[in-house]
């Protein structure tokens, strides 16, 4: 259970960085940390004690197949990691445009934001 708790601590730290920091790059870093925490959490849910990587080799019987870790979260996290990279590039592009328009990364200086 402590492993899940440490993952949740990592998630909360990313959320704190996203909410309380003023620099936009720091906010992006907070989102990246939250991304890591969620991916690690999903992989840890699928771990089995003494588990093997889910790759079938010649000569494996049903009992060896039963020792595999859960392959389903791994497949979904593989998708999630790549999507995280795409979202990060979009966020960095937004940061660059904001810097070109306002000349600073400081959120408290950018006062011309209109919803």
């Amino acid at each position, binding site marked *: *259970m402590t*492993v899940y*708790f440490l993952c*949740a601590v990592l998630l*909360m*730290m990313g959320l*704190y960085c996203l*909410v*309380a920091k003023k*620099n936009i*790059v*720091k906010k*992006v*870093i907070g989102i*990246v*940390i939250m991304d*890591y925490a969620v*991916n*690690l959490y999903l*992989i*840890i*849910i*699928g*771990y*089995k*004690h*003494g*588990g*093997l*990587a*889910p*790759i*079938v080799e010649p000569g494996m019987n049903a009992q060896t*197949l*039963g020792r*595999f*870790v*859960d*392959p*389903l979260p*791994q*497949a*979904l996290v*593989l*998708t999630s*990691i*790549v*999507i*995280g990279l*795409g979202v*990060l*590039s*979009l966020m*960095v*592009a*937004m*940061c*660059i*445009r904001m810097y070109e328009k306002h000349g600073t*990364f400081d959120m408290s200086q950018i006062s011309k934001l209109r919803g």
Partner: protein
Amino acid sequence: MENITPQLYTLLVFMVVGSIVAIETRNLLSAVISVSAVGFALSIAFLFLGAPDIAITQLVVEVLVLIILIRGTILIDNTAIETHRDTLAVVTSLILFGLLLGFGAMIFGSSGFPEFGEPLMRVSRVYVQTGMPSTYAANLVTAIILDFRAYDTLGEVAVLFTSILGALALLRKDGKVAREEVVSA
């Protein structure tokens, strides 16, 4: 395979400490390098947890994250923001997130959540047993993302394409200039 819990705890504590450094340091370059160290530790943790495909992908993505963050933001402006901190916001968010963490621990600790090392595997039992005979893929993760759940991969490609398209549309220079010329003419 032996018990991996000590290695996992070591890596998790390293990740938490690296995140604290990344959040609290003033220099943006140090913050980016710290978050990258956290990502590489995450890759090693994936290797210990029996997920070599995820570890390789995380390694490649981590290098790209480092390049994008340094090239896209740090090279433009690396000045630390020296304004005074909003103490009320910091204290309030810390208290609120601490409460969220506590309530989450209470809820997850009391319900029938699976313990570490004993996954449910209701769906993936079928994948593990029928993956090799039905898809002829030795790697079951590949069998799932390209065969059992190929629509998920199609959605992933759509999301990735849209985000890259958005980044390109935000960063282009030509369209804006041409529009202004049309307006002035």
